[in-house]
């Protein structure tokens, strides 16, 4: 029996389990990529129609930090994909990571790999099957996207280069996740390692892309490769080889680690702990805080770093834009008049509030994973109530996301002030706080989905966030009707400091969040647990 015996059978099993999830992921990412390119292509069919201004907007350091450099400032095709390149690379990398983790560490933690391992299955087969499935999913997504772009009449070589860039990023993270799954001893710490790697890669390329002297940072970040392929410009399709190289190295490395460890264990071994529980661990919310604390601290660190980057770039970003035409355009994009720096900061804080909502959803969905694991049953067998159990993780999500936003606003303000900016700590704190109600609506929606539709809660919560993000980000470009755009809570957050504070939308958002939480409680108290 070789170490790979049973790989095809396991691949078939993995496909059977994922026959909805994987095709859905492929179609969602490729579909979003292709549909988001249509509107810009219709607006700017030729290089002449673009003028210089638009591509220069995407060449500003602020935009570059977020979207990466534009492949070719004079190509309409390149303009059409500029917003999607980096966001799609992140989504596709997360997709590849999720597939690998799902079939390796998560399976092992659940004890199912043990059952398989006792059959005629080689030691390396489960990991090999997971990597093959993830690689296939990534490649098919890239292929469909390239075909879709060519179908829209975009340049073929450029479309191939675009897809190669995506493949480079995502394949690298397939390899990195394979290693993370061996190092970590729990599914959650695997998520921390791989997710942290994706976050670090984003940060590296964000700095590298916006600081000319540090541009080499973009080349050591797998996410940077998706823009370094310079689609519809230099067309460096060979960047895909970088991704393949990391994938191969990651697979070889993870096999080597796999051969050296026991089933069920990680290389980062678990430590011993206290024989007694601290006083704080005596209620459901105490438990939720204990379970969620490490994750929250990780997110907090991310928000501090994000605040440093956004605040640090604020002044230089806006100083560079001397052209009054571009300045005017940016103001219009920012949705109002005001200092250019304020417009930039308003946009960034609004974008990051979506990430704070993602944190809250992660925490809220822990309600579901706790129930599936049988923990909720044990807690409810104690002298506690359903409302306290439901409130536990919800409170951590709501308060945690608010703290994240305030820390973000504070850090941006302090760093900006230190760099000689004029935004002001107080105004940025207020701006960050004004975005919290919209974040809370997303979290309350996740809790409500958990209470009423526990089996599909994760899909509903993340799907809603994706829709809110897409509608908010692309709604205008896609020419979606106003009522649809209005569904996204983020569009109602007061755009401070560009605009003054406005009470009605904040009250409205808080009322929606409260109503969703009340509905969640009504559903949770009368349903079966487990």
């Amino acid at each position: 029996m070789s170490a790979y015996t049973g790989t095809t059978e396991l691949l078939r099993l993995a496909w059977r389990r994922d026959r909805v999830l994987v095709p859905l992921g492929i179609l969602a990412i490729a579909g979003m990529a292709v549909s988001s390119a249509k509107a810009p292509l219709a607006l700017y069919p030729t290089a002449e129609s673009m003028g210089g201004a638009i591509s220069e907007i995407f060449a500003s350091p602020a935009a570059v930090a977020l979207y990466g450099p534009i492949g070719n400032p004079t190509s309409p095709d390149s303009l059409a994909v500029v917003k999607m390149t980096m966001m799609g690379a992140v989504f596709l990398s997360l997709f590849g990571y999720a597939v690998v983790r799902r079939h390796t560490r998560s399976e092992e933690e659940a004890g199912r790999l043990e059952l398989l391992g006792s059959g005629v299955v080689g030691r390396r087969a489960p990991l090999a099957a997971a990597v093959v499935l993830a690689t296939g999913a990534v490649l098919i997504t890239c292929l469909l996207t390239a075909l879709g772009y060519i179908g829209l009449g975009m340049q073929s070589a450029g479309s191939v280069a675009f897809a190669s860039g995506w493949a480079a990023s995502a394949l690298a993270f397939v390899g990195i996740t394979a290693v993370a799954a061996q190092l970590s001893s729990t599914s959650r710490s695997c998520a921390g390692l791989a997710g942290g790697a994706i976050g670090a890669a984003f940060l590296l390329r964000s700095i590298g892309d916006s600081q000319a002297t540090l541009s080499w940072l973009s080349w050591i970040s797998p996410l940077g490769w998706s823009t370094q392929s310079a689609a519809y410009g230099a067309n460096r399709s060979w960047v895909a080889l970088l991704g393949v190289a990391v994938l191969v190295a990651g697979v070889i490395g993870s096999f080597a680690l796999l051969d050296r460890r026991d089933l069920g264990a990680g290389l980062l071994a678990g430590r011993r702990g206290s024989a007694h529980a601290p006083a704080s661990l005596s209620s459901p919310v105490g438990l939720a805080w204990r379970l969620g604390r490490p994750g929250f601290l990780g997110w907090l660190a991310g928000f501090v770093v994000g605040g440093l980057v956004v605040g640090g770039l604020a002044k230089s970003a806006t100083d560079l834009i001397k052209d009054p035409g571009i300045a005017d355009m940016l103001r219009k994009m920012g949705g109002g008049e005001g200092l250019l720096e304020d417009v930039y900061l308003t946009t960034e804080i609004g974008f990051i509030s979506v990430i704070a909502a993602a944190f809250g959803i992660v925490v809220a969905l822990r309600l579901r994973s706790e129930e599936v694991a049988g923990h909720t049953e044990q807690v409810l067998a104690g002298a506690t109530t359903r409302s306290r159990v439901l409130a536990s993780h919800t409170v951590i999500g709501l308060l945690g996301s608010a703290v994240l936003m305030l820390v973000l606003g504070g850090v941006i303000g302090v760093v900006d002030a230190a760099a000689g900016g004029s935004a002001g700590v107080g105004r940025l704190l207020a701006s960050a706080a004004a975005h919290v109600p919209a974040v809370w609506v997303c979290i309350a929606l996740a809790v409500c989905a958990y209470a009423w539709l526990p089996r599909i809660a994760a899909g509903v919560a993340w799907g809603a966030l994706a829709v809110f993000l897409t509608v908010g980000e692309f709604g205008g470009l896609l020419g979606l009707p106003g009522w649809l755009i209005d569904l996204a809570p983020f569009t109602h957050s007061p755009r401070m400091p560009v605009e003054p504070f406005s009470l009605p939308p904040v009250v409205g958002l808080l009322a929606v969040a409260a109503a969703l939480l009340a509905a969640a409680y009504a559903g949770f108290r009368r349903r079966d647990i487990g």
Partner: protein
Amino acid sequence: MSDAILVSGLRKTFWTTTALDGLDLTVSTGEVHGFLGPNGSGKSTTIRILLGLLRADGGTAQVLGADPWTDVETLHRRLAYVPGDVTMWPNLTGGEVIDFLGRLRGGLDQAKRDALLERFDLDPTKKGRGYSKGNRQKVALVAALASDVDLLLLDEPTAGLDPLMERVFRDCIDEVRADGRTVLLSSHILSEVEALCDRVSIIKDGRTVESGSLTQLRHLTRTSLSAVLDRPATAADLSALHGLHDVVIEGDRLTGSVDTERIGPVLDALGAHGIRALTCQAPTLEELFLRSYQS
């Protein structure tokens, strides 16, 4: 004596699967009650309804005089539960889980906790994922036994315990009984049930098929009989005889089973044929359960 658990006509359906179909269960205060049935017969569903985790579709359930669905908080201060499949939070130690579950119930006796850790030979400093199945079971048992509650709901609590720990568990349950507390014990280990339980209820397909003390249940079943006769009996000779079943005649040997209360008359009738050798065997527990499970 009042009843700690009083369930009648309990029904529960999951989508199209009927889990409980009019289940009855009475557990008297102060007794250790065995709760038996094949896999999937509805034992865990019943216990989860008694805990207020599931809502019954029909019938009534009373635990310690309270409604398990509405009086959750006050009721749960007086009971402790050990699930059949104990899962632990991977990053919490066993000691932390014991304290946490105990505090949720309104506090636990520290001296008792430490004594139980000693008796069960459990290391409380290991993190959740470091424990084997048996040790996870011990964590839940210590948490339940260390709290001062009136009722213990134990769902196959000893699956995964080694024989030494099984012995410790039996001692602990004997002490609980001596304190006058009540135990509902779901189990597949017949020797455990025989050693511990005052009364048992056997359920099948969501319905109660037998309930009573083991002596009573034994009476409901048949004694197996094997006799060698001088004058072989024919089936016709015996057809008029009440209480003799499953008769097989091979030459001079007759085997069959007799309703326990009809042993006397049957032996009298066989005596007429000249008994040369005779063995009678009371039903074993295993036969008792197999018969109930299969009926």
